């Protein structure tokens, strides 16, 4: 090879020139603007820029693009947003965001909140032990209900009226062994006179002439009867009316009837009472002879036999059993009776 051939630059081009196409120049515009191109390529892009309007247009567009992106850097983030992102999110906050609770209608939000409040109140009312709370708060600890204890002993201090009666009255009879005097616990005084008076047949005070219409206080009636012998024997205090001052819930049946030939009939009555399960309830025996013309029966009988006994009594005469309140309480199913049988007056 000759020297001239060696000095000629090696050409790869068929036409012995190498030019950059517009397409390549446009693709290299970014590198050109960033300064990444070498000298030859930079010159080629610049020459295409000056000659090709499309390349020039694209170059201008890219310039605008860079300028616009530079403006977008002015967007700022508020400090509270940074704090919110830094703190961990709770389950509730995530749930509210997912459900977009803020966009719900106001009425729906209020409805849900009211429902939640009502459910809370209902749960509180159901769970709270109100009976215990009432006992602790309303009822003080020192307030207790005490059941009254009824004592059989007539000398007990439970009832003032009974003790007063015992002191002031002269009972016609009793179950005491010594003097055979009568009931001291009864608050009703049959009469101050020695002869027992007939009991009113009905509890209605208006049916009896001498029975006072008012219901006298037992103490007053007792004291009034006790102070006198001057007490009118015809006046009979109302017995059958329930004495509201009687402390206990006990009662007894009191009856009285007159028969002919009481001495014959009295033992029969006694036998019948005992046959029906009667037991003496006081100190004296059933059918105690109080006087020549009077027999006294103070006994207990099963309630189931009471009707049968009453029917037996009626074969002689209706005893007109009157139920009276009495502090002495009998067991369930047991009745206590005081019956007086007298000789019928001719």
């Amino acid at each position, binding site marked *: 090879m000759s020297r001239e051939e060696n000095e000629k630059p090696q050409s790869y081009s068929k036409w012995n020139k190498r030019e950059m196409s517009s397409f390549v120049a446009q*693709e290299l*515009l*970014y*590198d050109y603007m*960033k300064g*990444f191109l070498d000298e030859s390529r930079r010159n080629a892009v610049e020459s295409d820029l000056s000659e090709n309007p499309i390349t020039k247009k*694209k170059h*201008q*567009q*890219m*310039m*605008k*693009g*860079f*300028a*616009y*992106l*530079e*403006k*977008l*850097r*002015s*967007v*700022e*983030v*508020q*400090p*509270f*947003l*940074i704090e*919110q*992102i*830094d703190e961990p*999110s709770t389950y509730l906050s995530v749930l509210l*965001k997912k459900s977009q609770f803020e966009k719900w209608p106001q009425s729906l939000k209020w409805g849900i909140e009211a429902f939640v409040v009502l459910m809370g109140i209902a749960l509180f009312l159901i769970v709270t032990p109100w009976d215990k709370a009432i006992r602790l708060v309303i009822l003080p600890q020192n307030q207790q209900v005490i059941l009254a204890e009824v004592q059989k002993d007539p000398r007990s201090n439970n009832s003032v009226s009974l003790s007063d009666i015992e002191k002031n009255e002269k009972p016609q009879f009793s179950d005491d062994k010594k003097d055979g005097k009568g009931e001291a616990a009864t608050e009703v005084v049959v009469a101050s006179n020695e002869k027992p008076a007939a009991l009113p047949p009905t509890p209605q005070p208006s049916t009896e002439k001498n029975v006072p219409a008012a219901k006298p206080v037992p103490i007053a009636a007792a004291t009034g009867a006790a102070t006198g012998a001057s007490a009118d024997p015809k006046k009979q205090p109302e017995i059958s009316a329930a004495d509201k001052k009687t402390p206990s819930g006990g009662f007894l049946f009191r009856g009285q009837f007159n028969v002919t030939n009481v001495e014959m009939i009295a033992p029969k009555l006694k036998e019948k009472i005992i046959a029906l399960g009667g037991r003496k309830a006081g100190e004296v025996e059933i059918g105690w002879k109080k006087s020549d013309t009077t027999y006294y029966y103070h006994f207990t009988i099963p309630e189931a036999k009471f009707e049968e006994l009453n029917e037996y009594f009626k074969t002689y005469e209706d005893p007109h059993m009157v139920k009276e309140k009495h502090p002495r309480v009998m067991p369930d199913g047991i009745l206590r009776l005081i019956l007086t049988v007298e000789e019928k007056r001719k």
Partner: protein
Amino acid sequence: MTNEQLIKEICLFFFFSLLDEEKAFDAAQRAWFQYQDLRKKLPGTKESVLVIQATGRVWNELNPKLQRWRPYLTKDAGWAWPAQLNMGPWMEFQKRSTADELMTTIWCYIMGYSESDVATGLGLSEGTLRFRLSHSIKKIGALV
């Protein structure tokens, strides 16, 4: 960089990429927690690279479901921009561009990260990155 600066950059990325303030907030929170996990796993890695990787993971999860033609910007959620700034061209670009072009443009030209960091974070070559950037710039320029 401080945590506040990192969070700010994450917020801006999702603001420009999603154009939905509510979604951007959730995505930024998730990306921040991702970043904290990556920082523990890759202690020697550059912070900018970790931020790009964390945001990239969250973006890839959200991108298929993203409805790009429904921007939601109120200026009350925590992002603020000048009144004279026209967001229209960017909204149009966000709708038309590919996911790769969007991400690279935001990181390089809005967040100001270097091309080498962005390429490392996204797992690309620099040449590929520049190719995508050039197309993005041309598109934005045509829209402005």
